[in-house]
């Protein structure tokens, strides 16, 4: 019996949003071990929050992610406002939705064009793909730029924005500024539609996997913010935000510094495809019409359709931002008064990559005594490993290491984990017996 081990070295990569690797052992033509290793050191943000005043939280959690800071802010503010029984105005709720749409647009456009799409054409990078698809990449960059402009409108800047407070915003945008941006957003609607049409022409591997989709659900809105929502699953769960911990369990695995999260003991999918699978009917008609013209049915059990869901949410986000800004009026105040009370605050919103759940304990002085944040990448990690096993076996384990590695990288990138940067440089170790 022979054993063949191949190591592919990771280039030096510092200060990226994550570092990952994959170890696979193949014995007698079967995968006997598969580990998605995340070895980025723990960042300890939950501990940093202890001892801080609740008012500081939006400006602290915005630093957790350079791509989805809005999600961290929104899960936090809705958590505290729910505990404090704060009644925000319709204007605040609507503008938060616009703000969040900006993040979906920039994050999804970045992922589609620079990280995921090159895989579907066999390109090694976005610049390589841009030589063949310059108009598509240019259009993607313009959409990403618009998403950033929306975030800047409310957050002063698109990286680690700072415009949010418990109770609303620090400042309401001027009507003239909104009008200029609204004009740009309307003009970009055909681009967002064309993006969705383009993505649906990709050559998707035929995969059908049995997985549970999980997302927030709202009676009449595609889920983004927390107000009026519960956590739903395709297996029939309906879970209140404050009951999350009774059903979702995080556990440590030896090969990862990120926790694995399971729903009633099983892996599950969070993110764009899960949202679309559970909330298709709540998309705007324009998005459903475009999706109705293609040969993909939703709910979909093919994880490769995540990129279609992402493009659909770019189009949805743009339409939604236009709808909510059409009759923009600058309010007398961009925030409401907040009266803190001690207790446990629970918040959950839909980050670009999926559910982002927060819990905070605060005392009578408004000081955080404990915090717990469950990000989407932790929730999807077990599902990614399950998908890798199924996809690689479907591809054929007798393929050479380069083919297996490329396929594994594409599978991982489909989930847009926050270790995307590192999975571009996946260190795949295949051990065959």
């Amino acid at each position, binding site marked *: 019996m022979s054993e063949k081990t191949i190591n592919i070295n990771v*280039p*030096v*990569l*510092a*200060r*990226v*949003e994550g570092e990952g690797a994959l170890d696979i052992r193949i014995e007698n033509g079967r995968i006997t071990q598969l580990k998605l290793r995340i070895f980025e050191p723990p960042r300890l943000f939950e501990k940093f929050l202890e001892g801080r005043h609740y008012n500081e939280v939006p400006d602290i959690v915005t*630093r957790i992610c*350079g*791509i989805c800071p809005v999600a961290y802010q929104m899960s936090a503010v809705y958590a505290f406002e729910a505990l404090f029984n704060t009644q925000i105005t319709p204007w605040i709720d609507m503008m938060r939705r616009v703000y969040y749409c900006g993040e979906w647009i*920039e994050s999804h456009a*970045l992922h589609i064009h*620079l*990280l995921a799409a090159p895989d579907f054409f066999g390109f090694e990078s*976005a*610049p390589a793909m*841009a*030589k063949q698809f*310059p108009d598509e*990449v*240019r259009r993607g*960059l*313009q959409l*990403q*730029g618009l998403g*950033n402009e929306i975030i800047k409108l409310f957050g002063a*800047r*698109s*990286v*680690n924005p700072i415009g949010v407070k418990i109770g609303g915003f620090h400042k309401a945008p001027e009507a003239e500024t909104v009008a200029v941006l609204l004009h740009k957003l309307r003009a970009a609607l055909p681009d967002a539609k064309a993006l969705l049409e383009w993505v649906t022409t990709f050559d998707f591997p035929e995969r059908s996997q049995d997985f549970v989709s999980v997302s927030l659900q709202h009676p009449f809105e595609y889920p983004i913010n927390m107000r009026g929502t519960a956590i739903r699953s395709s297996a029939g769960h309906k879970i209140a935000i404050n009951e999350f911990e009774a059903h979702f369990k995080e556990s440590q695995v030896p090969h990862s510094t990120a926790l694995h999260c399971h729903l009633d003991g099983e892996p599950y999918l969070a993110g764009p495809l899960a949202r679309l699978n559970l909330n298709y009917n709540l998309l705007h008609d324009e998005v459903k019409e475009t999706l109705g013209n293609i040969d993909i049915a939703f709910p979909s059990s093919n994880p490769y359709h995540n990129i279609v869901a992402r493009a659909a949410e770019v189009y949805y986000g743009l339409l939604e931002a236009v709808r909510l800004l059409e009759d923009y009026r600058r309010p007398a105040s961009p925030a409401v008064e907040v009266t803190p009370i001690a207790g446990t605050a629970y918040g959950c919103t839909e980050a670009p990559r999926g559910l982002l759940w927060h819990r905070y304990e605060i005392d009578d002085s408004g000081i955080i005594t404990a915090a717990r944040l469950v990000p989407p990448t932790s929730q999807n990690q077990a599902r990614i490993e399950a998908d890798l096993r199924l996809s690689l076996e479907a591809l054929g384990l007798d393929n050479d290491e380069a083919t297996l590695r490329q396929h594994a990288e594409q599978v991982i990138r489909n989930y847009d984990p926050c270790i*995307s*940067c590192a999975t*571009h440089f996946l260190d795949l170790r295949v051990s065959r017996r």
Partner: protein
Amino acid sequence: MSTLIVGFGSPFGDDRFGWLVIEQLQQTLAGQQTVKAICCDHSGIDWIHQYQPTEQLIFIDAVKSGAAAGTLHHLTLTPSALETLPTSHSSHGIGLREGVTLAATLVELPAEIEFYGVEIASCEVGTAISAATTHQATAVASHIKKSLRNL
């Protein structure tokens, strides 16, 4: 000839240099049709969709090259020279080098790109921009304003 001036950076310490130069230029250049000054605050690609072929291109960024902190760098570089910069430390690994590489496939870049940099000591989270870097930002903004007037 119109000009696009791009300040790269982040909110952290002296890495804010590029943004500070741009903020000073924006105050002076408000209303000018031929000059755009923008902060690039997310990754190295955010300027590409705002660049129009035939525009002059000026980049401003904090630098760590081993020189003494506060040292000003004023270089004229070809796009291909920028493509040889080390791998990026920016979000998703998409920094100045990757941005220029991508832009070069999408648009016709000028033969030369003007680059202003200041050598910085650190850019830690939670720190403010230093007085020395602030001083250099003002100097660079002033120099750019003067050179634009001479065009």
